[in-house]
């Protein structure tokens, strides 16, 4: 830091000398100030806006998680539930009524009270949201609650939400039309953060309007997010790509140690690394697995998240009848050397996946059929199926890194080499992630094989296998009513033991009978901070809270 400072000082002096009128200098304060200090954290992308209900991506959620609270929250570093704005919650045996005991004495950032009426106001706001534009942006709400009071545009789901009653100031009762396995974990989703009803109204929060081919968001989402969280929104400087938050001194829990928290948006991975090395940021998200070692050597802490992301090799038999044969799909599974892939390409903490969910999720079955690397068996199965040398169009994405695939091209290179080794002719097709990959693979189903994955939102088996295989999808090109029925049944069982057992059976069947894809690995991306940063706990859900973070003087 010292040399640039000196250079800047010299330049400043020069400019002062040049200027003819050296009168009053600016009245703005130059530095951070008090003891807690400022932490600057490098984000990989810009948030869409700050109203959690209209967002579904990690870059928008990161600031939201510091400013808002949810009824239930996830225990730091785990996917377990713990009290948030609700101190406890109970449900009726049929899972259709949920009662939340709310934390008393909590205030929103605008000074208004948090209470049962505020909770119900939020749920009612979501349920009654008007306009196709606004509804289309509520991805998580749509996913969990399926429908609105009045579905607009093409939305057609029947609503899971019925109503919300404020029984007394600190008790909110939520009535649902049906049970889903997602509850209660889904109440911790960042999208379902509780906003100040007063601020929502004051800043016109529901006014999402269509402008040409896009949407513009109201003042609430852009400049006035008002929650109960440990940090308060100060500014979003779009020209300089920084989001500034300050400590909320009225926070209900243990107050934040930092005075200011700044998220600096640096999309380029190498640029983030260099900013950390130059000392202009204190940490950043998603370091490249290749850099863990050098980052540690330079005195930084690499905090690795527990695996909650899954990479799979998708199989689509629609255009390639050879793939309809289970033996061919099994041959593909045997052909991939997943141990080598994990060892050579993936960061520490990555595990070979035996099924389509991480082992921490209820419903994980330890006794599924496994497909250890066995090229000879793969060749034998192909021969047996009468398809010794099938030709497969293998799609992989470019212009993207995802937690489950830090470097898609390299993973593709390894997998296609494995497939070629057993006699499969691979036709490589690269597509930009937003430039047709998802369309071709998920909508049109043009591929035979493809790489894709998923990062879990909460600890629920349905959030993994249900999302993948719960209904007919172009991505997997099959139609297997028995599989869909089994998944729907498992999701509808409120009893935890029955729920888990049903999903375990689904997992066994998926790996032996259906094999609609090959699970490759589960992994968690890392977060890196300087040596003098304490208290940041990496979360498998990427739900990191900076409230516990402190920064010591020593560099």
């Amino acid at each position: 830091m010292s040399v640039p400072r000196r250079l800047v000082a010299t330049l400043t002096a020069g400019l002062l000398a040049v200027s003819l009128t050296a009168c009053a200098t600016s009245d703005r304060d130059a530095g951070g100030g008090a003891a807690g200090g400022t932490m600057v954290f490098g984000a990989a992308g810009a948030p869409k806006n700050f109203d959690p209900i209209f967002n579904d991506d990690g870059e928008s959620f990161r600031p939201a998680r510091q400013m808002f609270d949810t009824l239930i929250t996830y225990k730091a570093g785990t996917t377990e539930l713990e009290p948030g704005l609700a101190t406890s919650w109970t449900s009726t045996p049929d899972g259709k009524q949920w009662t939340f005991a709310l934390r008393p004495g909590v205030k929103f950032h605008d000074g208004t009270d948090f209470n049962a009426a505020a909770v119900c106001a939020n749920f009612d706001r979501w349920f009654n949201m008007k306009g196709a534009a606004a509804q289309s942006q509520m991805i998580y709400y749509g996913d969990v609650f399926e429908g609105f009071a009045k579905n607009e545009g093409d939305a057609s789901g029947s609503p899971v939400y019925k109503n919300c009653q404020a029984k007394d100031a600190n008790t909110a009762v939520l009535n649902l039309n049906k049970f889903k396995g997602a509850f209660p974990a889904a109440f911790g989703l960042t999208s379902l953060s509780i906003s100040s009803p007063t601020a929502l109204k004051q800043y016109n929060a529901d006014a999402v309007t269509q402008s040409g081919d896009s949407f513009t968001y109201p003042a609430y989402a852009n400049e006035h997010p008002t929650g109960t969280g440990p940090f308060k929104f100060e500014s979003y400087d779009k020209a300089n790509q920084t989001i500034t938050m300050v400590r909320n001194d009225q926070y209900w829990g243990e107050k934040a140690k930092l005075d200011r928290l700044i998220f600096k948006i640096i999309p380029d991975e190498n640029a983030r690394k260099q900013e950390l090395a130059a000392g202009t940021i204190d940490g950043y998200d998603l370091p490249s697995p290749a850099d863990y070692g050098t980052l540690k050597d330079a005195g930084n802490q690499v905090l690795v998240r527990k695996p909650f992301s899954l990479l799979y090799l998708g199989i689509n038999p629609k255009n390639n009848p050879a793939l309809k044969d289970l033996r061919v799909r099994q041959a593909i599974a045997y052909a991939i050397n997943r141990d080598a892939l994990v060892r050579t390409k993936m960061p520490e903490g990555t595990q070979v996946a035996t099924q389509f969910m991480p082992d921490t999720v209820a419903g994980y079955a330890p006794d599924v059929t496994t497909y250890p690397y066995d090229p000879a068996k793969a060749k034998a199965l192909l021969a047996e199926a009468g398809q010794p040398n099938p030709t497969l169009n293998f799609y992989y994405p470019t212009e993207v890194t995802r937690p489950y695939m830090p470097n898609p091209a390299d993973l593709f290179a390894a997998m296609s080499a494995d497939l070629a080794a057993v006699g499969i002719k691979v036709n490589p097709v690269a597509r930009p992630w937003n430039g047709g990959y998802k369309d071709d693979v998920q909508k049109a189903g043009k591929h035979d094989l493809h790489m894709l994955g998923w990062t879990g939102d909460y600890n629920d088996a349905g959030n993994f296998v249900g999302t993948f295989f719960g209904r007919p999808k172009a991505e997997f090109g099959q139609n297997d009513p028995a599989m869909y029925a089994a998944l729907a049944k498992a999701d509808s069982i409120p009893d935890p033991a029955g729920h888990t057992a049903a999903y375990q059976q689904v997992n066994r069947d998926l790996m032996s009978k259906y094999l609609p894809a090959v699970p490759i690995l589960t992994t968690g991306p890392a977060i890196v901070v300087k040596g003098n940063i304490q208290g940041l706990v990496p979360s498998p859900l990427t739900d990191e809270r900076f409230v516990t973070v402190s920064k010591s003087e020593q560099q």
Partner: protein
Amino acid sequence: MSAPTTWARRRRARIDDTAQGRSLGADALRRLRRNPVAITGAVIIAVFVLISVFAPLLAPHGPAEAFPQLLDRLRPGEIPGAQDGFPLGSDQNGRDEFSRMILASRQTLLVGVLATVFGLVFGVLIGVVAGAVGGWADTVLMRVTDVLLSIPSLLLAISVAALAARPSQTTVIIAVALVNVPIFARLLRGSMLAQRESDHVLAATALGVKRPAIVVRHMLPNAIGPVIVQATLTLATAILDAAALSFLGLGDADPARAEWGLMLATAQPYLDVRPALALYPALAIIVVALGFTLFGEALREALDPKGRR
């Protein structure tokens, strides 16, 4: 016989030569042979072309072949370096970097040369017509050129590459060539514009020389200098543009195929772990670009009609 006859014959022969443009080339060749800059450039190009032609014979291994002895030591944060049988060590996928460097020369040559040639041919055609004919042809062609030029070149290249059903080497070549067409066109038109008003062209016009002849014999040779300089630079930038497309994921889809730009782009995540993976292709690109430009520069001087005095 007598001296004057010989003299007259020689003179006639020389005029014929000039008329057929023969001695211009011969002259240029003679002067190129004496120019150390040209020789350096030519040697680099020759070595590059030879390596790329014989690449499959020179490379000990295939571009997609991964080796267990390399894979065993390969980790996300560690890429094995030089060792027995692998003089440049492993790449990020456990393949032989040395073989890939050699095999890549062929793809790189293909992309650079074809993209430049296509760009040059179409650009020169447009520029000649616009600069020579003038009037409405000039206006229309320059409007089209302006439209093409006004789109940031990378955006243009990206869109062409993205429009194709599948990104491939062909789409990269077309994309890069298209970016260069308007540059050549406008440059040539600029110098033709100046030529059109110059004394020797006015003189030729006054003497009743036909227009196409004036354009080809008097304007073009004098105007082509900057275009050749540009073309030599374009050979380098074509390879670099292709690398930029690869950097953005719009290059050749087949990771089994080796290409320097692609190798440089895919080495980005490993800059701290093994910078050599980026340095080798970067140096190769720089040296080859150097070769083309040195030779092109010498060629420009040699071809310059004024230099023949």
